[in-house]
């Protein structure tokens, strides 16, 4: 099943043409990696899917992005509902300066009406279990989240997103601040999560793309040059520029 489809997607920062006619389809329960040199528009594409680009003045989009049969670029789109369905994990682990517990239940406190404490407890436990932090942290739930290690913080941020029960997880270089071991463990986590979510990950790390993703898209200067099965993209790319990038001939 295809979860997200982009049709003739163009995006402009003022006059600057940042995404050029992007056509793609992101599969459900698959991990899609987006690779490409710095400044090619990876983050921009990701932020189209939860309309975070709306926060920037002077952004204009054209074309269609269909998530669950709705064109989310339509002006009438309910952004709150969209962002509940399409969660985002950022590059820098960024927990709120609150307790571990309050970080996880933040979404529920915002969205739930008259939330009961035992329901919150349940959500906190389930989300922490999903990111494999429960055993480590179950006795420290009231400690400040800022005291955690970087890896724990990033897992916590993933738990915080999961607690809102999204369908799609957008991850913008989620491992770039982590050491190799932590990176490996977060990658394992992603493989587990893909059974329940559609995952799109932006990464600078080609090995990572090859390791975790089912599909890969290669972007260059705002264009989606190549899109397809990861193995095919890495072993038999159809475009010369993809091959050049993968073999290291671009920055």
């Amino acid at each position, binding site marked *: 099943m295809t979860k997200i489809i982009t049709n003739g997607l163009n995006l402009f920062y003022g006059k600057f043409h940042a995404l050029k006619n992007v056509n793609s389809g992101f599969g459900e329960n698959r991990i899609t990696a987006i690779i490409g040199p710095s400044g090619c528009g990876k983050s921009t594409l990701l932020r189209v899917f*939860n309309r*975070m680009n709306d*926060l920037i*003045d002077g952004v204009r989009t054209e074309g269609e992005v269909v998530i669950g049969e709705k064109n989310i670029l339509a002006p009438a789109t309910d*952004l*709150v*509902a*969209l*962002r*509940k369905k399409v*969660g*985002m994990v*950022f590059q*820098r682990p*960024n927990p*709120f*300066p609150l307790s571990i517990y309050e970080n996880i239940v*933040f*979404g529920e*406190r*915002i*969205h739930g009406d008259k939330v009961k404490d035992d329901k919150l407890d349940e959500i906190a436990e389930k989300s922490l279990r999903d990111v494999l932090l429960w055993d480590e942290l179950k006795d420290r739930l009231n400690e400040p989240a*800022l005291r955690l290690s970087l890896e724990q913080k990033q897992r916590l*941020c993933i738990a*915080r*997103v999961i607690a*809102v029960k999204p369908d799609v997880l957008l991850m913008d270089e989620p491992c770039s601040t982590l050491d190799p071991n932590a990176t490996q463990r977060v990658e394992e986590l992603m493989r587990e999560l893909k059974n329940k979510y559609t995952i799109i990950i932006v990464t600078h790390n080609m090995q990572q793309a090859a390791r975790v993703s089912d599909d890969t898209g290669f972007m260059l200067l705002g264009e989606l040059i190549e899109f397809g099965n990861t193995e095919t993209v890495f072993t038999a790319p159809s475009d010369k520029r993809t091959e050049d990038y993968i073999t290291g001939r671009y920055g």
Partner: protein
Amino acid sequence: MRNPYRSQKIAYAFLLLSTLLIVVPVGMIVVIIIQKGLPAMNWQFLSDIPRQGMRAGGIFPAIVGTLYLVTGAISFALPIGLLAAIYLSEYSRDNLLTRIIKLAIVNLAGVPSVVYGLFGLALFVIFFGFGASILSGSLTLGIMILPVIITTSREALESVPASFREVSLSLGASKWQTIRHIVLPNALPGILTGTILGLGRAAGETAPILFTVAAFYLPQLPDSIMDQVMALPYHLYVISTQVPNVDEKIRYGTALVLLAMVLFMNLIAIIIRHKFRKRKKW
């Protein structure tokens, strides 16, 4: 040949000297006032009404009056100032209008306090017909400290990292929920600091209350906000210049109480800021 090491030493000495030049007068003021005012301090001085044409007795009505005025000023200025700061930092776009507003606020902070006094007299006392009253005085003081409150609150709000706002919005929170649950709690210490500094300023000013509320001699407590009150700074002015033969220790005692009140508020502001600095880790 010039010796760079020596010129550094000279520069260092000058820097130290200028710093001391700032500290010494402040220290001297505090020491002198404490020295001369302390002998007047006793329970009667703090709790009794002025007697014998303000040459004896206490300053209780003036203390209470100042507390009333400060409370009134803050309950007017804090809500308005905070809402304005939220609007300016979170909602308004950077355009000519908001730039004019910000410029106006900066300039408002520099307006001499006697001008606020005249403004309060014209607007509240005469035009709105509140007369010389706690209401007029509080509103005048409130307007005087609005710029401080708006500016510090705005700075506090803007120092909350943008990434917190982004995350909150990306989790589906509305803009107001983000402000309410994320931005405001993190800006609170800064807002409190500004508020307390404003309080200190409101407590110490004479000119704004001169025409709008302050009573020359009123040895009873007010019944309503439409009454006049005595206030510490004005009382100090009166007993220092208008009433002959007031004992020096009563004058310095009054100054000491006023100084202690203002310094105490500043101390609270410093403590809050310090606590927050230690906690803040982003």
